[in-house]
């Protein structure tokens, strides 16, 4: 087995507010292998996006990394000085945001934004950078790229804009791309195209992807492995087929039940009652226990750690003794 590209160990993200310290991400650990697509799935507020922001070093105050380490190629990056971290962004780690309509500066042509980013990370002159920009736009499937390069963002449709955003995130050939809900803001008809494009490009460029989404269907489509987050914690992590077909954590099972499928006959959609707790009132023990149909006494008292169950790792006392 090769060395992981990214290693996140015991990451904890806190917010200092007037009402005290809130723990938004609580002791999570995972690896991302070179070239793999790693899905992170969970409801909004589960801490997925914050994890992504922490990796690329763009947590916004008052959010901060309170504990843990983040390593890229074995080198610690969570405590790098600002200037070094900046050079890492775009060059080593790229990021794609949710809303392509607001991700592009409306006052500059897409070409200008591409050339600027390419020139920030390489020693190319303007002509070379522009040629590369056109090539990138062609790669992401924009027709007549040599003309479109001089257009402004508002002249592109939503799907086309997200293609431009992907080109921008990939233009310095980063080794890891964090895609934070890359298709949520798009029309359903376009979502699949963008997801497949992302998958195909990352294979072509040998770029690993952390795909953050609340949509298990998207994860099932292109991920290699997936981590399920709930209330700031990882409750299950494993190969995507394993988790989709054979989810072990009751919450994960509920999520999988929510994937509509044409191939699988769904007996009944497992509906999880209630909603995720607010950060101010995370329950003791396993955070999921108040909603869990199978909860028992230990779940209320003690927090379960991830343990190996079959091919996956699960944080649930149902599997505590069987490992």
């Amino acid at each position, binding site marked *: 087995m090769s060395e992981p590209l990214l290693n996140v160990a015991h990451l904890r993200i806190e917010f200092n507010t007037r009402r005290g310290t809130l723990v938004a991400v609580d002791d999570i650990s995972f690896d991302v292998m070179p070239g793999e697509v790693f899905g992170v799935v969970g409801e909004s507020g589960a801490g997925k996006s914050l994890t992504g922001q922490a990796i690329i070093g763009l947590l916004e105050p008052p959010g901060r990394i309170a504990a843990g380490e983040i390593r890229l190629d074995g080198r610690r990056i969570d405590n790098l000085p600002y200037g070094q971290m900046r050079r890492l962004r775009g060059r080593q780690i790229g990021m794609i945001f949710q809303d392509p309509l607001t991700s592009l500066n409306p006052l500059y042509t897409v070409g200008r934004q591409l050339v600027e980013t390419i020139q920030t990370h390489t020693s190319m002159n303007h002509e070379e950078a522009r040629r590369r920009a056109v090539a990138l736009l062609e790669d992401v499937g924009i027709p007549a790229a040599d003309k*479109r390069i001089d257009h402004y963002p508002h002249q592109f449709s939503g799907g086309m804009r*997200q293609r431009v955003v992907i080109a921008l995130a990939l233009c310095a050939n980063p080794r890891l791309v964090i895609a934070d809900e890359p298709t949520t803001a798009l029309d359903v008809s376009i979502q699949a195209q963008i997801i497949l494009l992302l998958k195909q490009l990352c294979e072509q460029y040998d770029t690993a992807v952390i795909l953050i989404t609340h949509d298990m269907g998207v994860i099932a489509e292109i991920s290699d492995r997936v981590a399920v987050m709930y209330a700031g914690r990882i409750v299950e992590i494993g190969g995507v087929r394993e988790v989709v077909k054979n989810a072990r954590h009751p919450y994960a099972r509920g999520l999988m039940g929510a994937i509509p499928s044409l191939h699988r006959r769904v007996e009944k959609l497992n509906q999880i009652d209630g909603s995720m707790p607010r950060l101010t009132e995370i329950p003791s023990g396993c955070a999921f226990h108040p909603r869990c149909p199978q909860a028992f006494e230990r779940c209320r008292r003690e927090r379960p750690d991830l343990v190996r169950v079959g091919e996956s790792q699960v944080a649930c006392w149902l599997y505590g003794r069987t490992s």
Partner: protein
Amino acid sequence: MPAFIIRRLAQSVFVMLVVAMVAFLMFNYVGDPVHQMVGIETSMQEREALREALGLNDPPLVQFARFVGHAVQGKFGLSYQYKRPVAELFEERLPATLELSLVAALFSLVIGIPMGVYTGLHRSGFLSRIFMTFSLIGISLPTFLIGILLIFVFAVILGWLPSYGRGEVVAIGGWTTGLLTISGLKALIMPAITLGMFQLTLIMRLIRSEMLEVLRTDYIKFARARGLTDRAINFGHALKNTLVPVITITGLQIGSIIAFAIITETVFQWPGMGLLFLQAIHNVDIPIMSAYLILVAFFFVVINLIVDILYYVVDPRLRVDMGKAGGHG
């Protein structure tokens, strides 16, 4: 030309007509124009003849049309005080006011924009707090007080700068300028600062709040995630996006500067339009008042139009023929 500029143009014409109406009502019905033009010994018949000659017995609408027609040609009648054509008086005074206003506007932009950018980027820095306090004082001090305080310090106590007038001026064609002589420049310093101070603080606060707003947007976050330098983000991406509201306010402020010039010119006895207007108010010199009203409105309308055109230049979203946008992915 885009439709919105045409619409603005129509609106401008409407505003000018309304203002002209006010000026016309003032000119014709406040006091008696004939009374102002003749001596006490003029007989009733002579007055009535003059009345007829001036067209004051025509229907109001005809008179208004005539008034507008004259105004367009720059004919505003004779000043009661000076017994000279108002247009002539304005011509003499205009350079002084425009020079002062222009320098004041430049001063407020050149100092105000960097201060606004700085306080926007370093929100809680020590210097930012000083700037913000300074700006609140700037907003709280009436223009005339700033002028008095400057005179007190730099003219009375230190004796460095002249406290009134334009200094030596040079005539170039019909234009007199104080920008080419040392004494003219020295005389300009305090009035320009006085006039520009309020706009400076306004521009600074505006840029600051706009910067704070823009720095929160997704495209700035995305620019950071691409590893662009702070310089490129702050000045290339953020500052340019603050420009649209800044242009609006600056445009309005340049208009205000012309109005506030009345106060500054009074404090410094600056021989411009504002001083002329204020003397006209004191002496009930209606032709000057109504002409000034029209002229100021005209400046405002022109500035507003320029602002609209600038939008068009800065923001590509307004510029583009939407028909060309296409391509669904």
